[in-house]
């Protein structure tokens, strides 16, 4: 209440005073922030503007109001499929990958340092190798009866090989599995580093206070101490799991058979990099952006409950 009674003039004075005090801080952030605004913020604002135009890279952009958005939701059935697929993938890969990276990071911390480092490398390796490992997935899920998975299933008594990479029922399953495989990325690394940072003294104090097993320790000590890393991991997971696209491309080609694994990012690249309808592609990017912001808000709320 008191704050709202302060007059505008007084508040301006106070802000000015704080700003003067913060001058060294402003100087510290200035170099990065300058580049950030020039190379990140400005292009994003420009792209948001494009989403209201018919920009096609070659001609001058004309303002078309909300027509791109209207077309997306009313006329573009592929986009609706893409939203649906993206959510199916994200709902599994997001929480799945997040929990898996945390649990693995936590278990690694229970091991001796050297073994832990080796395991960290192993789990991070698929993400580090990037697209180079996709050929392995193609081999595993190969359609013919000699693909590793099919051969294995056949040895168990199955007769017909499953068309993992062309049957529209299975494509999305394969994409989900491959994405989970690649989901131990930067979030995982930050968990590993974060868990090591939890103060050992707290575990000792916890043991005295009656924490009995490692699960209680995890919930009451480790997790609350790692909130910044959990937040970082959550943002990584949101951006990663909602932007799945290139994995499907490399596995089944673009566009996927019957749009079975067509995601928002696939749709975006279709219009942005192939058809060069930049205005329309920007509208897709804006929608994806809004979806991510909403998810981020929800997950931040959930994370506040950790350890309580």
């Amino acid at each position, binding site marked *: 209440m008191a704050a709202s009674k302060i007059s505008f003039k007084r508040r301006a004075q106070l802000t000015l005073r704080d700003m003067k005090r*913060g001058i060294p*801080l402003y100087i510290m952030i200035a170099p990065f922030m300058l580049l950030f605004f020039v190379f990140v913020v400005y292009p994003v604002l420009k792209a948001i503007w494009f989403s209201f135009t018919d920009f096609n890279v070659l001609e001058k952009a004309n303002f078309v109001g909300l027509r791109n958005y209207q077309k997306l939701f009313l006329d573009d059935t592929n986009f609706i499929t893409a939203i649906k697929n993206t959510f199916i993938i994200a709902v599994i890969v997001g929480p799945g990958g997040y929990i898996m990276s945390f649990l693995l990071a936590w278990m690694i911390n229970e091991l001796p340092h050297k073994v832990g480092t080796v395991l960290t490398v192993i789990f991070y390796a*698929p993400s580090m*190798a990037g697209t180079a490992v996709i050929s392995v997935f193609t081999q595993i899920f190969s359609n013919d009866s000699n693909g590793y998975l099919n051969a294995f299933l056949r040895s168990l008594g199955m007769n017909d090989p499953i068309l993992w990479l062309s049957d529209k029922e299975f494509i999305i399953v394969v994409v989900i599995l491959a994405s989970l495989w690649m989901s131990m990325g930067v979030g995982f690394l930050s968990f590993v580093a974060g868990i090591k*940072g939890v103060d050992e003294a707290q575990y000792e104090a916890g043991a005295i206070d009656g924490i009995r097993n490692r699960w209680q320790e995890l919930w009451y000590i480790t997790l609350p101490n790692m909130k910044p890393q959990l937040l970082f991991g959550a943002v990584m997971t949101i951006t990663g799991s909602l932007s799945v696209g290139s994995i499907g491309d490399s596995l089944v080609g673009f566009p996927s058979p019957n749009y079975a694994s067509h995601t928002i990012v696939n749709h975006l690249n279709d219009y942005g990099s192939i058809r060069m309808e930049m205005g329309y592609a920007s509208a897709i990017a804006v929608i994806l*952006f809004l979806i991510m912001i909403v998810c981020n808000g929800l997950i931040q709320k959930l994370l506040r409950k950790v350890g309580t």
Partner: protein
Amino acid sequence: METIKRLYQNYLNKKKSKDFTPFVKKSQRSFWGNVILGLFLLVMALAFFFPVVYMVSQSLKPMNELFVFPPKIFVTNPTFDNYRDFANVLANTVVPMSRSLFNSLFVVVIGSVGHIVLASLCAYPLAKYKFPGSKFFNQIIVYSLMFNSAVTMIPNFLTIAGLGMLDTQWAIIIPGFASTLGLYLMKNFMEQIPDSLMEAAQIDGAGYLRIHFTIVMPVVKPALVTAFIMVFQSFWTNTGDKFIYTEAQKGFAYVVGQVASGKVAGVGTSYVGISSASSVIMFAVPLIVFLIMQNNVVSTMATSGMKE
């Protein structure tokens, strides 16, 4: 200055004692819990390591084994022919290999080191101080991670052209400085540094910059390392998109990518072997950096025994 020295010494002692104490009192570990965790980790590690093993084994296969049907996982007659072929192709490119390798190294080294310095300078004030605008900057950084870069490439191209950086290395390096991923990671780790550590330094008359380089940076070393690995990798694997800005300055990853996909004349079907050898080499470089960096992070944060 005395207090800082004392606190820092304290921290180092804590760290030492932590590294060398043979036992830390933790809550009980049940035997079966250990067995289950161990088995689980083993299975997961095998699953995650499989793609890498496959990749390496593939690169050691002679031509007749590469095309054998049904495909085998492990190589029977390992040979380094693929690596030799790969080296031969690289040695015979029109533009000497040393050029593209130099291009890449230049970008990777300047880009990664510069990013870490600039971003950490920006992360520290944003993580630990409140000043007018700090909340806005923090928010905008998180949101900037969520916008798809496919549609921001054209505005960026125009900016880079306007700054006269087209066809130079700076067109990759300078926008790369402004990547917010590393900044966000470091900022989240810095939030965990107890305020008391910095207050003590301030009382002793240390300025922000001094605190940053003598206290903050050493304490968040795990985050710096993680951010470095991340940035290194993104510069190293940079092949396609960003090179629309620098047609004349192709890097190593680009050339290798062209060779690996069989786009270089005179390679013929042997590109399958060459491509698998090249993916191992492309993977090995960040892996080595990762191992060196991880080894440097023995342990952890300065939070020991200093709770607010």
